[in-house]
C-alpha cells in the first residue's frame, strides 16, 4: 500500500512539469503583447518597453523563461504579475475563498445527493423516486447561470434573505447559496448515480441473504446496501472536487466572488503568463491528490481492490 502511494506521488512529478510547460507555451502563444496591453493608448518609449521586457524576462526564449520560472518556484517564488504584485499574494487571496466554496458545494452535493438518491433508490418507481428523477433531470439540463440568477433573485431580491453579492472576505455564511448553485448539476448527477446503484444492490443476492439472516431492515440498508452503493459515488465526488475548483467561474461571476475561477479568467484575458501558470500548477496538484485520495478510498470501501504493485 505504501509502495503504491509512493509510486502515485512519483507520478505527480512528470505530470506537474508536463502540465506547467504546456500551459506556459500556450499562454505565450496567445496573440497580443502583455506589456503593450498594460499601457493602453499612451504607449511609453521603446526604451521603457525594452526595460520592462527584460525585467519580466520576456526578451528571452520561452523555454528559458519557463526554466527561470520553475527555478523561482522551487525557492517559493511564484513570480510577479505584470502589475508588480507577487503571484503568491494573489493566490493567498483567491484560493481560500474558492476552497470554502468548493467544500460547501461538496458537502451539499454529497450529503443531499446521497441521502435523496438512497431514498429514491429504496422506493424505486414510487412518487418520491419519480419526483427526484424529474427534478434532477431539470437541474442537469438547466445551465448554471440560469440556476444562479434564479436563486439570486429569489433569495437576494424577492425574499431578501441573502445579499445579492458576496463581500470581499467571502465568509462561510455568504457562500452557502453560491455553493448550492455551483453544486446543482453535480448534486443531480450524484442523486441519480446513488439511486441507480442502490436500486441495483437492492436486488443483489447478498442483500437478500442479509435479510434472511434476520437483520433489521435499517441495518440491511446501512451496512449492506449503502456502503456497496457508495463505491461509484466516491469516484464521482473525487473527480468533481477538481471540477469545483476550476469550474466556479460562472458562479463566481454571478455572485461577484473573487476566487480562483475569476482570477484565472482575468489573467488569461490579460495574457498574465506567470499568474495563469502558477494557478494551473496548483490546480494540477490538487486534482492529482484528489484522484489519489479517491483511489485510496476505493480500496477502503472495496477490499477486493488491492494496490499491491
Amino acid at each position: 500500500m505504501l509502495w503504491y502511494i509512493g509510486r502515485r506521488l512519483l507520478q505527480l512529478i512528470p505530470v506537474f512539469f508536463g502540465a506547467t510547460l504546456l500551459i506556459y507555451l500556450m499562454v505565450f502563444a496567445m496573440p497580443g503583447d502583455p506589456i503593450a496591453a498594460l499601457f493602453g493608448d499612451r504607449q511609453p518609449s521603446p526604451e521603457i518597453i525594452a526595460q520592462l521586457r527584460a525585467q519580466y524576462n520576456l526578451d528571452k526564449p520561452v523555454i528559458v523563461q519557463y526554466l527561470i520560472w520553475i527555478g523561482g518556484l522551487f525557492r517559493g517564488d511564484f513570480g510577479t504579475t505584470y502589475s508588480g504584485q507577487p503571484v503568491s499574494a494573489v493566490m493567498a487571496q483567491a484560493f481560500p475563498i474558492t476552497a470554502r466554496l468548493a467544500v460547501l458545494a461538496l458537502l451539499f452535493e454529497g450529503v443531499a445527493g446521497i441521502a435523496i438518491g438512497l431514498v429514491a433508490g429504496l422506493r424505486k418507481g414510487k412518487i418520491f423516486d419519480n419526483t427526484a428523477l424529474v427534478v434532477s433531470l431539470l437541474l442537469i439540463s438547466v445551465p448554471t447561470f440560469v440556476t444562479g440568477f434564479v436563486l439570486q433573485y429569489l433569495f437576494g431580491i424577492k425574499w431578501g434573505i441573502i445579499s445579492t453579492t458576496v463581500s470581499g472576505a467571502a465568509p462561510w455564511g455568504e457562500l452557502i447559496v453560491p455553493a448550492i448553485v455551483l453544486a446543482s448539476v453535480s448534486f443531480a448527477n450524484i442523486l441519480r448515480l446513488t439511486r441507480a446503484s442502490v436500486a441495483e444492490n437492492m436486488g443483489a443476492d447478498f442483500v437478500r441473504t442479509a435479510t434472511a439472516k434476520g437483520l433489521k431492515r435499517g441495518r440491511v440498508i446501512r451496512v449492506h446496501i449503502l456502503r456497496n452503493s457508495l463505491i461509484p459515488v466516491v469516484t464521482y465526488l473525487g473527480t468533481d472536487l477538481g471540477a469545483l475548483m476550476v469550474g466556479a467561474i460562472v458562479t463566481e461571476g454571478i455572485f461577484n466572488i473573487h476566487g480562483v475561477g475569476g482570477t484565472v479568467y482575468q489573467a488569461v484575458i490579460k495574457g498574465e503568463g506567470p499568474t495563469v501558470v502558477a494557478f494551473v500548477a496548483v490546480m494540477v496538484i490538487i486534482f492529482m491528490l484528489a484522484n489519489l485520495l479517491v483511489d485510496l478510498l476505493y480500496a477502503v470501501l472495496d477490499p477486493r481492490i488491492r494496490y499491491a504493485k
Partner: protein
Amino acid sequence: MKESTNVNIDPNAQEIPLLQVRDLQITFKTVNGEVNAVRGVSFDLYQGENLAIVGESGSGKSTTATAILDLLAENGRVSGGSALFNGKDLTKLSRKEMEHIRGREIGYVPQDPMSNLNPVWNVGFQVKETIEANTELRGKDAKARVIEVLKEAGLSDAGSRLRQYPNQFSGGMRQRVLIGIGMSARPKLLVADEPTSALDVTVQRRILDHLGTLTREHGTSVMFITHDLGLAAERAEKLVVMYKGQVVEYGDSKEILADPKHPYTKRLVAAAPSLASRRIQSAVESKATAGTVGDAVAVARDQAAVPTEAPLISVDNVTKIYDISQGGFKKTQFKAADNVSFKIAKGKTMAIVGESGSGKSTIAKLFLKLEDISSGTMTFDGRDVGSWPKRELLEFRRRVQPVFQDPYGTLDPMRSIGASIAEPLVTHGIGDTASNRKTVAELLEQVSLPASTANRYPNELSGGQRQRIAIARALALKPEVLVLDEAVSALDVLVQAQVLQLLADLQAELDLTYLFITHDLGVVRMVADDVTVMRQGRVVEAASTDEVFENPKEQYTIDLLEAIPGGKFEFGTSA
C-alpha cells in the same frame, strides 16, 4: 445418516408438523399481467425431518421457499393459502415479526456462494452480525460463537481467517460460511436452496455430509430445494415433486423415486443420469440392429473391441503452461494441462471428466486451436494440429466445430436464429442466400425444431432450444468432430436427456466423433465410449466407460463415483 431415515416419517404421529404449508398460491406482476408461479402447494414438515422439493427451473420450487421466508422479489406476493410455522402463519406476519423469525427460527442457505456474501465486509463480520441479530451474545462471546459455528460448518482454520474477505475464499469455503450463518442461531428449520449446485461433486459430498451431521445433532429440520433427484433421494426422507407451480407427487422419497406415479415424475426419474444409467442408443442404431437394448450395448462393445486403423484424433503428451503475472515483471508458471495423452477413433465419443481446475476445458481449447500448445502434439486425421497451416485453418474449422456450455451467451441476441445458424456458411463462402435458407431449415429439422424457428430471436427460446440451435450451427458445415464443452450442464434433467438423445442420433446418422467435456459422471455414463479422468491437469485414469464405472482403478475415480448424489440408486426400478 441411516438412523435419520426412520425419524418422524410416520404421518400418523400425533405431533403437530413444524411447518404446514396449505394451498400456497404465489403470483408475480409482469408486463403481461399477473402470472401464477405457484398454484396450490401443500406439504408438512416435522421436527427433525428432511424434505426435498424437486423440480426443473421454473417449477416454482425456489419461489415456494422464498415465500416461506417472506423474501419474494418486489413484484411477487402470496395470493392465497397459508404456511403455518409453529402455529404462526408466515404469510400474514408483519415485517418486524418476520425479522424475529428469520435467522433465529428459520435459517437460510442460499444457492450461489459467489454472490451471497457481501464482497466489501470480511467474513467474520458477516457471521458475527447474524449472531448479534439473533442471540444475546455480544463482543468477545459473539466472536467465540462465530469461530464455533464456522468450525461446525467445516472451516477448521476459522479463527485465523475471520478478517479475510469473501474473495479470498473458494466456492466451497464460502458455501461453508453460508451454512455456518444459516445454522448460527440454531434454527428449528433450515431452508437450503440448491446449497451445493455450484460446487464440484467431491466438495458437494463433503459439505452435504457435514450439513447432515450438523442438522442431526441439533435436531434441525431441513428443506432442500434441488433439481437433482439423486441428491434428493440420498439426503431427504420426504419428497415434494413440483411441476409448473403445482405439486405432482408428495411422500416418502425412496418410494416415489422407485415407483413414480405421476407421468412427469416418471419422465424425470427415467431421465436422471446416474451410475446405473446405460449408454444412450440412437433410434437409428437400434433399428439397424433390430435387437433389444442389451444387444445393442453388446454390439457397441464388440465394435469398440475391434481395433480400428489410425485414430481420428490423437493427443500425445500435451502440456499447456500459462504465465501468471505476479505484478511487475514477476511471473509464475501454471501447468493447466500436464502430459495429457488420449486417442479417439472415428465415430466414437471420448469424455474428459474432471472437477474445476482439472484442465479439461484447456484440452478442448487446445484442440480447437483457440490456444497454442506448449509442448506435445495433437493430431487430427493424421495431421499435426499445432502446425496446421494458417491458410488451411478455415478447412480445419469446418471439420472441427465447438458447442459451448452457456446457451445464453453463445447466441448473438441481435441476430435471428436463422442468421446465427447460417453464419458459418457465410463465413466459409458456402451457398447463396436461397440455398442457405434451405440448409438452415434442414439443420433445424435435424435438431427437431420447426423451420419457423429461423425467424425467431434467442430471447424467445428456452435454454434447451438454444442449445439445440448451438448444435445446429455447429453442424452447418458438416463437421467430422464436435467438441462439446459442458454442452448439457446448464440444462434441466429432462431437456438434458433430450439433447443427449439428439447427440446420439446425430452421431449414428452422420458418423460424428465427439470430444465431450463434462464434470458430470452420470452424463458420461450415458454418452461416452471411453473416459479420460483428469485432475489438476493430469490424466488420472483412462479406459472404456464400462471399465471406469464398473472397475475403477484409481482412488480419485472411486471418490468421484462415490460423490455422485444417489449414484448407486436405481431410479424407477419397479417402473
